[in-house]
């Protein structure tokens, strides 16, 4: 046999062996299974709070025009607020306990975080004159559109950051669970 071909066969066998070894998982004993069930029920119970992050965006729109000393200044200040929840669909998660070489490992697989809900309201309006017209370059501004666009821009801007925060908050919770039951944690965010 030529040595190169020999080596190839050896490696092919190696690969198949390693794949089969990895696909084998040890059987769970009853104790592990009970703990797994307990942890899953605990997570489901806490899910509305730990699997999501509450973010509140309070923005204001200010229109201010300095006028001559004998006239009133035009001021128009409107507050807007949106509450957004970022989180995971806990039903799509996979939680299991595996025993690998005498170590109990809590394995958690979570889906991508997403925007769960949004709740928006106009909070207040302060102005010197209720009839203040918001003009820009002598054109009246569509305030509703302007404020909505600004709010959406800010929500978009903070979305990646808040997804990360939601992930780290959730990870911390699972770390506490693993810590409590002397497990090692392996957490995966897709």
């Amino acid at each position, binding site marked *: *046999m*030529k040595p*190169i*071909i020999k*080596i*190839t*066969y050896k*490696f*092919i066998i*190696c*690969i198949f062996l*390693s*794949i089969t070894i*990895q696909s084998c998982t040890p059987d769970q004993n009853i104790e592990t299974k*009970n*703990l797994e069930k307990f942890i899953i029920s*605990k997570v489901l*119970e*806490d899910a*509305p*709070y*730990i699997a999501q992050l*509450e*973010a*509140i*965006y*309070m*923005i*204001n729109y*200010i229109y*201010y025009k*300095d006028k001559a000393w004998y006239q009133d*200044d035009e*001021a128009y*200040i409107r*507050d807007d*607020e949106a509450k957004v929840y970022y989180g995971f669909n806990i039903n799509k998660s996979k939680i299991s306990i595996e025993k690998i070489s005498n170590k109990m490992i809590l394995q958690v697989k979570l889906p*991508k975080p997403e925007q769960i809900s949004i709740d928006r309201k106009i909070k207040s309006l302060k*102005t*010197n004159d209720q009839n203040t017209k918001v003009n820009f370059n002598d054109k009246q501004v569509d305030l509703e559109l302007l404020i909505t666009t600004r709010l959406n821009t800010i929500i978009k801007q*903070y979305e990646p950051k*808040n997804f990360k*925060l939601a992930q*780290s*908050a959730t*990870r*911390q*919770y699972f*770390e*506490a*669970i693993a*810590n409590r039951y*002397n497990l*090692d*944690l*392996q*957490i*995966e*965010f*897709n």
Partner: protein
Amino acid sequence: MKYLDLKKLHNFLLLKFNKAKLIIACEFLTFIKQILRYIIIPSALIIAIYSFFGGSIFYNIKHLFFKETQIITATHINSKPIDSIFTSFIYINTTDLKKNDNKIIGLCSRTYEVSVGYKDVQSFIEKNRDASCNETFQSLPDPTILSINAVSAQIEGQYSQQECDTWDDASKTGLRPSLGAISMKLRREGRWPIIKENSQHILMSYINLYCKQI
């Protein structure tokens, strides 16, 4: 098991075909041999080493294509206490108006990123373990503002930059006036009870970990 023997193949082909065809066939076989030597064998070697030392090859391949996957393996976490938990993120602005005869003559509007949560959670749980196990979330303490970060400011009318800056100046009282303004605004607009409830629920789920037994 039979394997590819080029010499035997050569002799066999010499009997069957003419020389021109044989040269083409040999060229082709050499080409395949080169592929085997320089591409297939090295890659098999790499995969074999990967699967022996680096875990699943399927995972590694998946990991190459789906880069957003984030895997965090925390080992020896038993020594790590829960120092602080983070419950809410708030993007907020506080607007201070300067008024004259009830008319707005100037304003300072500052925008902040605020984090709300609890500090020293582990020690809190340990201190209150017996008491808090029988309590409901309403009896838990209020969360605190963990951090505030000024993002932008808008100054209009008869409000000076200096005056507006004092909102983030902690030199006089040791506390930034903006901190008070933010918590005032959250309370005044009825936002705080909702933040508080959400935070208390989160803290409760941590406390429950140490109270509930299997």
